[in-house]
């Protein structure tokens, strides 16, 4: 069922269940985000995407647009003075905690925040957006990453700080990381997944060689997982994508 919403004075009709973020994007109105990816459930943790929502008459409420579903007659303000002020505060706090995280720096600079008010950890770029954790759970389905502790001590880690037995080394977490603090590198027949610098190695993988050209290309864990998941016969997926033409 289509419902009518008004965003920044422009009225549009969207499907029920759409979030404010998507409705605004369809109108070409950009709302900044740090912890959002369409492939996973919204999380509402970075708070950067806040907007004002009201029924057009009464008081406006500040909500996170990424996980707030629209309702009929909803009025949204994405750039009011109150929102700008709150967003500046949020970005200031984020920048204080992670002064060297590039996307935070860029976004904060857009809103005029260049000098953070407090001092945080310049060695830690992880903004705890949870994208890696959610992607590993919801897209890959192995839950090899998680959070430890709470409050200021919260950290993104592999379970019990050990190499996770379920991690398959696919690189999805590295791909979604907004601050690029997760890394995956291939060195010869070894693949290493680590956070920030080489001291925090999450897991090391042994890469299997391609049966045709001999170049290492796939972690053993990944081959086994994919074989099991897609019920592939043993013979398949032992050649690298470059050697394996159709029908191999």
């Amino acid at each position, binding site marked *: 069922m289509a419902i009518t919403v008004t965003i920044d004075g422009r009225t549009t009709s969207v499907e029920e269940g759409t979030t404010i973020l998507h409705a605004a994007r369809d109108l070409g109105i950009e709302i900044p985000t740090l912890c959002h990816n369409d*492939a996973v459930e919204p999380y509402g943790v970075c708070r950067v995407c806040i907007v004002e929502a009201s029924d057009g008459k009464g008081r406006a409420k500040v909500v996170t647009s990424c996980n707030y579903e629209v309702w009929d007659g909803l009025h949204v303000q994405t750039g009011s003075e109150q929102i700008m002020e709150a967003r500046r505060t949020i970005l200031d706090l984020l920048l204080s905690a992670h002064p*060297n995280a590039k996307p935070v720096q860029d976004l904060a600079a857009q809103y005029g925040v260049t000098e953070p008010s407090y001092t945080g950890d310049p060695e830690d770029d992880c903004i705890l957006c949870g994208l890696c954790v959610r992607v590993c759970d919801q897209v890959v389905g192995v839950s090899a990453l998680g959070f430890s502790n709470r409050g200021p001590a919260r950290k993104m880690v592999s379970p019990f700080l050990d190499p996770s037995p379920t991690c398959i080394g*696919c*690189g999805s977490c*590295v*791909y979604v990381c907004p601050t690029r603090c997760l890394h995956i590198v291939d060195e010869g027949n070894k693949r290493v997944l680590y956070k920030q610098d080489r001291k925090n190695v999450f897991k090391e993988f042994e890469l299997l060689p391609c049966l045709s050209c001999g*170049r290492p290309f*796939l972690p053993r864990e*990944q081959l086994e997982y994919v074989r099991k998941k897609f019920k592939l016969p043993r013979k398949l997926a032992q050649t690298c*994508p470059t050697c394996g033409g159709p029908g191999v």
Partner: protein
Amino acid sequence: MENFNVFVPRLLDAREYFSAGHRACQGCGETVAIRQILKAVGRNMILVNATGCSEIFSSPFPQTAWHIPWIHVAFENSAAVASGVEAALKTLERKGRLPKREICVMAIAGDGATADIGFQALSGAMERGHNMVYVCLDNEAYMNTGIQRSSSTPFGAMTTTSPPGRLSKGQKTWKKNLPEIMAAHDIPYVATLSPSYPFDLVRKVKRAVEVEGPAYLHVLAVCPTGWRSPTAETIRLGRLAAESGVFPLYEVDHGRYTINLDPGELRPLKDYLGIQGRFRHLKPEDLEYIEERVQANFEKLRGKARMTAREDRKDRKKTGRPRPRQVKKAARSKK
């Protein structure tokens, strides 16, 4: 980025900006590249498309495959028109007639429209420093008019205007090295990409949009029709081109060279040339000549990467962290 696997594709933008149902040939590499490029940029863009395959097959009147503002221009002036669009946007924003926002101005052209016909317009636009992205979809000949040679056709390739025979070995000259020519313009960002490595492509397109000033992207668009290759081998051909060193994947970010895919020992050239009918007439000594030259070129590229990495290490010593070098902005009044 090239080592990402099975689950990452689901994390790309799910929206399509380039419709299916256009008139491209089977196995066209260009369409794959366009689709991925548009996904990387999103809808905040204005696209200028030179005449060529991509324009012909995507917009037969009265239909269009594009879900974004799109301008079709002649062969020679896509870069000029894109720079005009960029200047107009800047002026309108300055006069307050448009709200300030980041709009990507992109020009897309084939190799003929880039290396031959539109070359001076491109050079001019890059030199003037417009904030735009120029994408060359290189299928290595004028495919749209029936496979005529261009200056981007590789040595030895058969085309209808460089036919092999008793007196000819196909294309007589070596492929024009466009990315290097653009890097010589000293623009902020130059990169070569291939749709066979989608994540590398998406990252480079995003970087090109992000940098202030002109960016040039050179895409290898495999063309089964003109290359006389099986349509199912398109993606594999792109990978073989990169791994054999014929089309090295690298980027030049503010003068710093990075080879994104260095296979160590290059793959034998026969793997790449063997699938393509356009190289069928080549004799072993011709292959040897090409292989030697490809290896020499790749070695040269490695040298450049090593040299700029050395400078980078010095930078890192100063700042303590690896970060892209920024070229000092020219003293130009910016209103």
